[in-house]
Structures are given as C-alpha cells and as structure tokens.
C-alpha cells in the first residue's frame, strides 16, 4: 500500500518535470542555466586562462575584446572571459546555498505557524511583520557593520534575510491544506504533530516551493551582485559578476567591456530562472 503511494508520487513528479519541459520557454531557460553551470566549472579550459592569473601589466592591461581574449582584459591584465565564467560559479553557488537554507527555514517556519494556528500563529506572524519592516539593504549593511563581517558571512546573512516571503507563502498554503479530510483523518489516527507536518503536510505544498525556488535564486543572484557591486559582497580578488562590474566602473568609457559583459550574464541568468519558474507553474496547473 505504502509502496503504491510512493510510486504514484514519484510518477506524478516525473510527469510534472516532463510537462514543464514540454513548454518551450522552460526548456530554453533550463538549457541556458545548464550551459552556464557547465561553463562556470570549465572556466579555465574554455578561456585558456586562470581567473586570477595576472597578465603582463604593461602590455595586457585593458585589452579590448579580441581573438585571444574574447571578452578583453581588466586592469591587471586578467582574462575577462575566464573571470566572468568563474564569477558565475561563485554567484550561482552562493545563490543555490542561500536558497537552500532560506527554503528550509521558510518552509519550517511557515508550516509550524500555519499548522498550529491560533496564538502561536499570531505571534509568529507578528515576528515576521517585524522582520519585514527592515528595508533589506539597510538591514544587511547594519549587520555587516555591527558584526564587522569578513568574507564567510555572505551566505548565512542572505539566507537569514530572505526566508520571510517563503514562510508567508507556505503558511497560506498550509492554512488551506489543514482543512482537508486527509489531515483530519491522520489527526484522528492519533499521529504526532511532527509526523503529520513532515509526512503529510509539507510534501503536499512542495509544488509552491518548486515554483518559488527558481524565482528566489534569481532574486538572490540580483541581491548578491548588488552587494558585490557596492563592495560589501564577494570580495576581490575572488571574481563575482557584481564586483567585476564595480571594477569596470572607473574605466567605463575607456574599457566598456569590463562592466557591460557580466551584466549581460546576470540578465540572462535571471531571465532563465524566471522562465523555468513560469514553466513549472504552468505544468502544475496543467496537472491539476
């Protein structure tokens, strides 16, 4: 019996992915993301240069895009193609880890709040209101300043400041799930709250989570690049899309390629994740 249900669930899951891929745009989005991930890990072989290796500071500074350096070089003569691809690895890795952590916090918080309801729910939602009252960038700047943070902080900091919307979304979903008969049935069977939440409630709001994840990744990529651009995110010499753009800011007119190219990468990455999320949402609505 349990086996049957399990296989039913996996089948539905596979069906959903197949449906999502049938939608043209999702497929394009997914292809772009896969290419980005692969190329980001192959940054050195693709470009022929290590992202941090300095070139000849006299002759190879600020070279315009050419055959040897398709994206040109920066102020240390570093190959920009290599740095942009490698920066993609950093940006994507940060985004994926942040979203993983923030999803876990958000889903747990939202499901506990929604499931128990009543006073617990009210208190938890007030805390959420309070956290959402801080404008994000100001909050991040304040935390960085107070704790005199150095580079390891970025992932926990972004995770801690980005789980709130997910929690709200999950709570709303669970409030409606809670009224379903099957939840009453398992409650009647005397299962513990924890078992009900983890086995029966959370798996059933995974569709919401699946739609949110790509959107969240896009959001975090934008946020991280903004922070790195301001000089408080990923610290040089480690390349990230945001700090490469910042590097090119002073030489915007004389070496336009440094700032423009990483921005194009950010744009297409963010766009792809939006397309993927769109596809997942559509395939879910097709299913139901």
């Amino acid at each position, binding site marked *: 019996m349990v086996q049957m249900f399990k296989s039913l669930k996996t089948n539905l899951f596979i069906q959903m992915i197949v449906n999502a891929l049938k939608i043209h745009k999702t497929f394009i989005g997914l292809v772009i993301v896969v290419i980005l991930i692969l190329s980001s890990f192959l940054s050195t072989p693709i470009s022929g240069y290590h992202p941090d290796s300095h070139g000849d500071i006299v002759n190879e500074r600020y070279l315009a895009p050419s055959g040897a350096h398709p994206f040109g070089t920066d102020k240390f003569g570093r190959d920009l193609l290599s740095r942009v691809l490698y920066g993609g690895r950093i940006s994507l890795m940060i985004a994926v880890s942040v979203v993983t952590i923030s999803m876990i916090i958000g889903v747990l918080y939202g499901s506990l709040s929604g499931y128990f309801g009543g006073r617990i729910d009210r208190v938890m939602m007030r805390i959420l*209101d*309070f956290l*959402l*009252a*801080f*404008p*994000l*960038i*100001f*909050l991040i*700047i*304040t*935390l*960085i*300043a*107070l*704790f*005199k943070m150095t580079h390891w902080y970025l992932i926990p900091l972004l995770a801690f400041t980005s789980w709130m919307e997910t929690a709200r979304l999950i709570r709303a979903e669970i409030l409606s799930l809670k009224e379903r008969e099957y939840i009453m049935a398992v409650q009647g069977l005397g299962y513990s709250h924890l078992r009900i939440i983890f086995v029966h409630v959370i798996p059933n709001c995974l569709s919401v989570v699946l739609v949110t994840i790509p959107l969240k990744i*896009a959001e975090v990529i*934008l946020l991280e*690049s*903004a922070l790195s*651009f*301001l*000089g*408080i995110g990923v610290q040089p010499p480690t390349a990230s899309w*945001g700090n490469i*753009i910042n590097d*090119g*800011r002073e030489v*915007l*007119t004389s070496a*336009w390629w440094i*700032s*423009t190219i*990483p*921005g194009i990468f*950010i*744009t*297409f990455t*963010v*766009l792809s994740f*939006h397309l993927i999320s769109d596809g997942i949402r559509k395939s879910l609505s097709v299913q139901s």
Partner: protein
Amino acid sequence: MSRYIIKRLITSIIILWAVLSATFLLMHLAPGDPSMLYLRPEIDAKVVANIRSQMGFDMPVWQQYFIWIKNFVQGDFGFSFVQHQSVSRILLDAIPNTLRLTISVLVFQYIVGILLGILCALKQKTKLDTIINGSLLFLYAMPGFWIALIAILIFSSYLGWLPSSQMNSIQEFNNIWTYTWDSIRHLVLPTLILSIPFISYTMRFVRDKFIDIMQDSYIVTAKAFGFKKNMILFKYALKNALLPLITLVGLYLPFLLGGAVITEFVFAWPGMGRITVNAIYTHDYPLILAANFIATFAVISGNFVSDILYYVADPRIRFGKNIA
C-alpha cells in the same frame, strides 16, 4: 474610524519599539564594547571617558537601553567622528535629497505603470500585450546598477544628453528656471532606472485587476445598458481597479529605499543611501545605525499611512465589522 487609526498606530509603535530593541540587542551581541561603535580608537582617552558618561555607556545595561531609546526617539543619534558633525545633522541634509528621488520615482512609476497596465488589459492577449510584458520582464531581469552604468555610458558619455552624477551642476544659476531645468535633467536617469521594477509590478497589478473587473457583474450590467465603452472604462472600471494601488505604496517602500541605496551610489546622489554605503567604508557606525532606523521608520510609517488611506478610500473596510 478613530478606533481603527489608534489600533494601527499602537501596532506601528510596538513594531518600532521592537526594531529599536533589536538593534540595541545586536549592538551588545556584536563582538567588542558597544560604546566603541560610537567612539573611535584615535580619539583621546579623556574625550572618550567624557562621551562615555555623557551617552551613558558607563551605566548598567538596562539603563543604557533606556537612554539609547530615549536618544533615538528624540532624534539624537550621536556624533559622527568621521565627518565631525552630529549624525542627525548629516541625515537631515541627506533625507530631502532621497525624498526628491523616491517621490519622483513613485509618481513616475504610477503614471507609466497604470497607463501600460490599462493598455495591456485592453489589448489583452494580443502581440502588443506580449511585447510589453516581455520587455518589462527583460528590463526587470537586469540589475539596476548595471542599467544605470549602461545608461551613463550611452546618454552621458557618448551622447552627452544628460548629466551622469550629482543633483545639480557646479555653476552659478541666473534664475530659478535654469536651476529647476538643471535639477530635472539630473533627476531623469536615476528616476527612470529606479522606476523599472516598480513599473513592471504596477503594470501587472493594474492589468490583472482590470481584466478581473471587466468580468464583474456591474460592468456586464453597464454594458447591457448600452453605456459607451469609454464611459464604462473610465467611470466604473478604472476607479475600482486603481483603488488597491494605494496599498502598494506600503509594499514598495522597503524596496524603494533599498533601490535608492544602489541608485544613489551609482549616480553620486547625495542622499541617505550613498551616505550609508560610504559609512561602511569609513566605519562610521553611528551613522549606519541611524540610517537603518530612519529607513525602518519610513517603512513603518509608510505602511501606516497607506493602510489609513485605503481605509478612508474603501467603504467596505470602513463599514465592515471585521477590521484588522
């Protein structure tokens, strides 16, 4: 009415108090002596002792807490030893500049967002709708600071049409008109760029709302009565579609202030955001804490005002029994 306002006011004050307390708590949780956030290592020991006792840092923690909250509520945010000015003075100079930017963004994005939203709703599922939606998503996907740089590159460097930084040119102005014209020219690029995400949100909101409302029974009735299409649109549908937009202000404020930080930084706009970013580089902690408080205060009061406006504008909430 007044009961609702008072109730919302109390909630806002509680949140504000919680924000202040949390900041205080974080200050004490952070490594190092919190008084060192307000003082700097290069200051003379005598001065340090003097200021410590003045600001109450030599008292027990619970007394510090009350003094700190009292100071913040009264607008006394301490002294910036980096800029040799009181923090409230610095902020008072910067806030009007940030307001100039954010208000012009709010107005501009509402105008463009509403117009595009109505247009898309009327031309629903046509090519125009798809094109507008697609290009807005495309613009939304671009990081704001990057579009800003590209815009500076194109419109300031190559074409020379618009200034790339500051709020005014450094020159003497003969009369108020040239001054105003100069200010507007400086405002164009930052406003356009900061507006983009808000335009796409407002536009989608208006579009969906409008499509929804056009299927409502009272619109169908009006159509059945043979009212002119324009009259239905502008007299009946528009009013109801635009009303919920008031609440969006509350939703936008945190993002508006956050976006202003980055836009001000790129355009060297002398507002709160740029000051805050610079304060990180110079380790000007009193300024950062104060700016964070002001921004939070703005968000909380903005939410309060937009709730009240909505309450005034929508009789269903005003006369409903179940408020808040």
